[in-house]
């Protein structure tokens, strides 16, 4: 069964550094999402992406964040200058039609 994959599984970075989290959505899906989950807290929506543009973004998704679908298979989340509070599990999800969302295993980001 097709799955959403994410790399790396764990990323450690220094505060102020840029990180790129990578996702490969399920191949025939059209909608793509990033969420994050700070340890012990709720899963929070960051951004949705459809037809090569952002459909919706949350207040968390400020100018430090960006998303890209560079080559028709990958979907990336970039954080330009990481802060301590960006430490979280980041989940990518994809959906065929914008309803059921299938999540990847997550990337644990640790900012030191």
């Amino acid at each position, binding site marked *: 069964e097709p799955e959403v994959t994410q790399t790396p599984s764990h990323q450690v970075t220094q505060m102020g550094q840029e990180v790129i989290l990578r996702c490969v959505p399920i191949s025939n899906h059209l*909608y793509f*999402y990033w*969420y994050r989950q700070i340890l012990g*807290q*709720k*899963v*929070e*929506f960051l951004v*949705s992406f*459809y037809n090569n543009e952002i*459909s*919706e973004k*949350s207040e968390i998704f400020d100018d430090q964040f960006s998303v890209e679908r560079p080559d028709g298979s990958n979907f990336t989340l970039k954080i330009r200058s990481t802060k301590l509070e960006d430490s979280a*599990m980041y*989940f990518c*999800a994809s959906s065929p039609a*914008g*309803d*059921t*969302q*299938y*999540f*990847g*295993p*997550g990337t644990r980001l640790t900012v030191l």
Partner: protein
Amino acid sequence: SQQGEEDPQALSIQEGENATMNCSYKTSINNLQWYRQNSGRGLVHLILIRSNEREKHSGRLRVTLDTSKKSSSLLITASRAADTASYFCATDEGDYKLSFGAGTTVTVRA
């Protein structure tokens, strides 16, 4: 934006028993989805119920939706140790995002 809120926060049951958890939300939705998360792992989609549906089944799972009360329930029948996980409801208001609740932690004792 609104979020689903699960109740109870934690549930401990004996293997073979049923587990029921509830989710309440605040405004109109297109659909409501239930997910499972094993400790430190990703979210596994369990079931989606649309706003015009009242009940849905998938294997040992039964989901109900009452839009007049803005609530949903997830029933897991004949629980197994492998059902030990956190369960989340997530509401879709038709705005390209899911809003998650805090989850119910289910422990199934052998």
